């Protein structure tokens, strides 16, 4: 893998190579999270995207500085809406608890919910309208807490875990493909909320210019110590090479430096989570999870609480994915709800886990690296292929143009093919799980 990245670095550029590496690291964290759910416990979570997006939202809400004006005009209504929401839910819960079952309870319950919804809608509409009216080209949303963005990685995990708790209440206990469909549906609902609740996320207007945990390239290019470093590394004398060439050198070096900083952060997170995951897998808890996965009925007969364990593992896995989602938004420096599509953020992660080896943490990491590398590099390779195969067609030939336009989509075919082939001929993945009694 390092060799492959090295080849990319030498042939394309080190900046490209490191960009791929960074996303490989993030993908590895995501696939570790999914591996906890699928590999440890056999849960088919088709809602990976929801955790990722919530992690991204957390990055915005933690790091963006609060928009005072928006709070001033919409804060009161937002607060009222929030109180209404909480009291409606609490009241509904109380009604279910205290009032004896029967048609009276049903009527009270229904009226209470309807009233709560109407009131909520009232406050919510006022709040969202007034907030979204505040300088819509720049802000038009409440903003965040203005804390360092690194905190958001933890917050992202926590938010994703919170959603997973709710989803778990709803969907766990369904049979596997129902669970998959339900999670897929919930993740789509989450994305449409993120896209449309402008007061919270700016919606499809995106939040850009998030704070960075690493220095900016421009600042680096100005600072003397960095220029000295470049000179020392290249062992070049700035007086001998031309001014322009030197400028270019500093520029590309600053890009590499920034990406290396990110890589350092991501690698730390990946190693910590990998270590924890390995510990968990080899602990009594991990053995219990595998026992439940391999034979639910037998495990239940041994007194294991299957649904609760499933919920636990689902929440843990989602939290890990949420951390990765926050990391991704941090790396991008922007939050774009429109970019969350299930093929890229749910099913690609699935390919990673299946290829790497379900149940094996190192396998999940390896699968993430291989898959992401293929996903990115399939495009230049496909373009190169098209260029060469089409060399007998003239430049203006429409067919040639068509092939060049659609070449990027070849990666979908490649991904699907790899997934089907691995599932067929090496169902345990590249690095199979050790000590397993799995039968399928």
């Amino acid at each position, binding site marked *: 893998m390092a060799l492959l990245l090295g080849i990319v670095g030498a042939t394309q550029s080190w900046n490209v190579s490191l960009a791929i590496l960074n996303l490989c690291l993030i993908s590895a964290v995501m696939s570790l999270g999914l591996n906890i759910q699928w590999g440890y416990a*056999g849960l*088919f979570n088709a809602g990976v995207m929801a955790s990722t997006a919530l992690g991204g939202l957390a990055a915005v809400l933690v790091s963006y500085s609060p928009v005072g004006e928006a709070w001033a005009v919409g804060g009161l209504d937002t607060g009222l809406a929030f109180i209404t929401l909480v009291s409606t839910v609490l009241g509904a819960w109380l009604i279910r608890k205290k009032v004896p079952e029967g048609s009276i309870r049903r009527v009270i319950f229904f009226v209470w919910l309807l009233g709560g919804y109407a009131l909520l809608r009232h406050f919510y*509409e006022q709040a969202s309208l007034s907030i979204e009216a505040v300088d819509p080209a720049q802000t038009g949303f409440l903003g965040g807490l203005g804390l360092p963005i690194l905190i958001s990685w933890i917050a992202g995990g926590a938010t994703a875990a919170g959603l997973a708790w709710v989803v778990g209440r*709803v*969907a766990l206990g*369904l*049979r*596997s*493909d*129902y669970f*998959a*469909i*339900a999670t*897929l*549906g*919930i993740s*789509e*609902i989450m994305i*449409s*909320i993120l*896209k*449309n609740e402008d007061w919270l996320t700016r919606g499809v207007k995106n939040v850009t210019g998030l704070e960075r945990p690493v220095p900016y390239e421009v600042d680096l290019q100005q600072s003397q110590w960095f220029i000295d470093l470049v000179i020392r590394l290249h062992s070049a004398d700035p007086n001998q090479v031309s001014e322009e060439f030197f400028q270019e050198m500093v520029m590309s070096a600053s890009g590499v430096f920034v990406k290396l900083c990110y890589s350092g952060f991501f690698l730390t997170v990946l190693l910590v989570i990998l270590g924890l995951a390995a510990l968990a897998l080899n602990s009594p808890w991990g053995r219990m999870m595998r026992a439940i996965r391999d034979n639910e009925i037998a495990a239940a007969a041994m007194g294991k609480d299957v649904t609760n364990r499933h919920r636990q593992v689902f929440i843990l896995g989602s939290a890990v994915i949420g951390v990765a989602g926050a990391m991704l938004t941090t790396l991008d420096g922007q939050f774009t709800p429109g970019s969350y599509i*299930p*093929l890229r953020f749910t*099913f690609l992660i*699935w*390919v990673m886990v*299946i290829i790497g080896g379900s149940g094996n943490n190192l396998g999940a990491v390896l699968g993430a690296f291989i898959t992401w590398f293929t996903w990115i590099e399939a495009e230049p390779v496909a373009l190169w292929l098209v260029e060469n195969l089409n060399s007998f067609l003239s430049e203006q030939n429409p067919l040639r143009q*068509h092939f060049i*336009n*659609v070449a990027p*989509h*070849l*990666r*979908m*075919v*490649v*991904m*699907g*093919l790899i*997934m*089907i082939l691995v*599932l*067929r001929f090496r*169902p345990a993945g590249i690095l199979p799980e050790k000590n397993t009694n799995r039968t*399928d």
Partner: protein
Amino acid sequence: MDSLNAIVLLSNYVFIPSLVYGSQLALGALGVTIVFGIMRFANFAHGEMMSFATVSTIFITWWFQSIGFTTGILPTALLALPFGILITGLLVWAIERSVFSYYRQRKSKPVIFVIASVGVMFMLNGVVRLFIGTDEIIFMDGLKFLIKAGEFKKWSGLKEGLALKQTQVLTVLLAILAVSWLFWFLQKTKMGKAMRAFSDNEDLALLSGVDPEKVVRTTWFISAVLITLAGVLYGLDKSYKPLIYFHLLLPIFAAAIVGGIGQPLGAILGGYIVAFSEVTTTYAFKKFLRYLGPEGWSPEGLVQLLSTEYKFAVSFLILVLVLLIRPTGLFKGRVL
């Protein structure tokens, strides 16, 4: 007069669109359900199969148009439909032979089938885009409107117009035709009975001499017919966009589950439930209420339960509710 206006308004913007959309969903959900009934897995590649079927039909339509083989009034795609079904049938059969049959012989868990179908989904998604790109394609030709809004207003003297597109009528007619044929097939023919027996109790059916390969082959072919119909009718009515077909998968699943997965009747009902609730919850009833209320009165706000952006979310909401309250769907018990 005002109440008439209200009725026309509602049928133009709510009733007819939901009926048409519901028919398209019902056809899709029937395909999902029939595969589920026999092979016991939810086919995630269904949406992409619909996309593929539509694309192959589009290519044949273009070919027919280029040689001038058109009817003038009916859309050319209707002539291309049988060929589209044939191509889709071949594709689905090839997928069955190369991917799914292996797992069936090994009696793998349903979830393995689902993962395999995700792989198929990726491949088909790529293949379709390789052929046709990602642009929006309108392949409807022939007569567009059967009733035009302006003409209707003139004829009836009402303030509200009623428009009826040819594709809308075609969708409903073809859906009725396909569904009645399917039910006749399942209830009356030997093969249909074998399929139902197989779905009800596989071992018993095998003992009675039902050929499983034949059952599976027939199932895939029927699903190919339904896939092509659903895909082409949706594409004719709206337009063809590769991305939309992936998104259609979710309302289709919702429809199949709401009705009770594996239940053909449930799939049809589910399709209409999903479509009607998607349209009614996102329709602004302001104008409608203004007609019904006293003269000069107008309701505050749009009287809209959810904003239109949440149209797709409604089907999942229904899905989640059904899974919570009645996981077996509206119809339960024996499938197919």
